[in-house]
């Protein structure tokens, strides 16, 4: 029998830990048990030792409009629900503002509205491919507010998938090159597809950060991620499988090349503190944003 850790000790230790990829449900998401996953996330977060959950809600999660193609009405509803959750637990929760770039004006209004209400980043899912020009005004709005953009990604898009207009690392890389002052969080390297394709596609693009979340726990994935982008461009996250997030955090202690304590701190919270607005993350020391260096020039 595995011995449970003592209750008082967070399973991931006492140092701050930022989950950059979390989600919550709400009453109009079509699930009668919507409160249970929300409570489970906070329960597990406390046990792991998560300092702050940075989360998004994608409309009505498919109930009234598709998960990855949410209507403007559902986008607004989801963002309001997300901000309400943040308001109820301001010491542990922060919000992304979710937008659908096909409704450009609405998307820009939502970024402005939710930014004023306390959102700290932008969530883009799969309503439009990442390199589409429609994303440019979204990225420009994010830049003005110093918001990072968390972008849903399929690791190596070899074909279209139903229910989403999916992007991969190469697609996101093209957007990131057009907006070198914006930090892009490439979602869930363990979330499906070939992560090694992603690593090759974005290794040389310094404003793309890898989020470790997703149900995939392939051995070798973390080692390859560290080799490709280094600890300074890796962010910890859980998405909808928190046990794989914890396992990956533990496994980082054993990757090749070895990560020292400072590198682990970068992944746990310091990288997040650098790319989110100054002082936006509760319980996490504020760090000045660092300039993104591209081809030897600070931008």
């Amino acid at each position: 029998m595995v011995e449970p850790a003592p209750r008082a000790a967070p399973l991931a230790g006492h140092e701050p830990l930022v989950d950059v990829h979390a989600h919550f449900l709400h009453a109009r998401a079509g699930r009668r048990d919507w409160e249970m996953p929300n409570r489970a996330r906070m329960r597990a977060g406390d046990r792991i030792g998560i300092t702050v959950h940075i989360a998004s809600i994608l409309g009505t999660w498919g109930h009234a409009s598709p998960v990855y193609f949410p209507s403007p009405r559902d986008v607004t509803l989801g963002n309001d629900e997300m901000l309400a959750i943040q308001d109820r637990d301001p010491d542990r929760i922060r919000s992304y503002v979710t937008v659908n770039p096909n409704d450009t004006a609405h998307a820009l209004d939502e970024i402005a509205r939710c930014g004023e209400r306390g959102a700290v980043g932008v969530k883009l899912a799969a309503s439009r491919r990442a390199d589409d020009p429609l994303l440019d005004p979204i990225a420009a709005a994010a830049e003005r507010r110093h918001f990072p953009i968390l972008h849903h990604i399929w690791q190596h898009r070899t074909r279209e998938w139903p229910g989403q207009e999916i992007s991969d690392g190469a697609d996101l890389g093209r957007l990131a090159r057009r907006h070198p002052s914006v930090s892009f969080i490439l979602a869930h390297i363990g979330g499906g597809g070939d992560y090694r394709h992603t690593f090759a596609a974005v290794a040389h693009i310094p404003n793309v950060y890898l989020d470790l979340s997703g149900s995939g726990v392939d051995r070798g994935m973390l080692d390859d991620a560290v080799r490709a982008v280094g600890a300074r461009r890796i962010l910890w996250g859980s998405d909808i499988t928190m046990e794989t997030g914890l396992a990956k955090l533990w496994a980082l202690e054993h990757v090749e090349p070895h990560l020292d304590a400072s590198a682990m701190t970068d992944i746990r919270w310091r990288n997040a503190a650098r790319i989110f607005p100054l002082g936006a993350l509760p319980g996490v020391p504020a760090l000045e944003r660092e300039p993104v260096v591209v081809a030897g020039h600070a931008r």
Partner: protein
Amino acid sequence: MIDAHTFIGPYPFRHIPHPDPDALVRVLDRERIESAWVGHLPSAFYRDPAAGNDTLFDALSPYTGRLIPVPAIRPDWPRWEQALAAVLDRGAVAVRAYPQQWGFGSNHPAMAELAVACGESGVPLVLTTRFEDLRQRHAMDLVGDLPAATVRALARAGPRVRLLVAAASRALIEEVHWGLTPDERARVWWDISWIWGPPEDELAHALRTIGSRRFVYGSGWPLRLAQTPRANLELLPDELRAPLAPLGDAAQIPARSA
């Protein structure tokens, strides 16, 4: 504690680091796991797994009692009965089969014969639902996940058949479990390597509804991180953590001694 779901050897569709017995022993030490049931990963993709079984027994021989061989038997191969007898003579405590990789349908008679023969010999038959997530498979890896119908058919093949199904997730487990009689489902075990934890809490749900005695500890190493099942158990709701003793030991499956 036994990790009932491990392999040695490389995987044909991607590089995996250090899939070797000595690395596995170090992982077991780190995870505080006493022993592991170990298959030979390349054998799943051999037409005839016999050579892989020889490699497995040879590779594990320095680790007797710690790494326990679980060889593969292909039941549509000539003289498979003798092959089964031979691996049992060499100390196998369970037998693996890969009906998907061998192109067998859910009601293939040879699989039923193997399940019955294993049951009569006092060893469980180990099935693997998947090696990788469907979303990331190589273009040449066209084999689908193990269907629930295959598991149900084998569980019904005979009263002494015992199955351990690795890498199954909630939907498959529930479709099989509630699709069997109480006697049949009492002869099927599941490893927890691919069951989601919080926030959906699918492992907690399975333990509550199906019962912890049907589940064993398993990781899927070297394909998957060995830390995952430990993390999953640690994140269970409080009321499920205390009575977990029945889970976590493949030794609960009636089998020959290692």
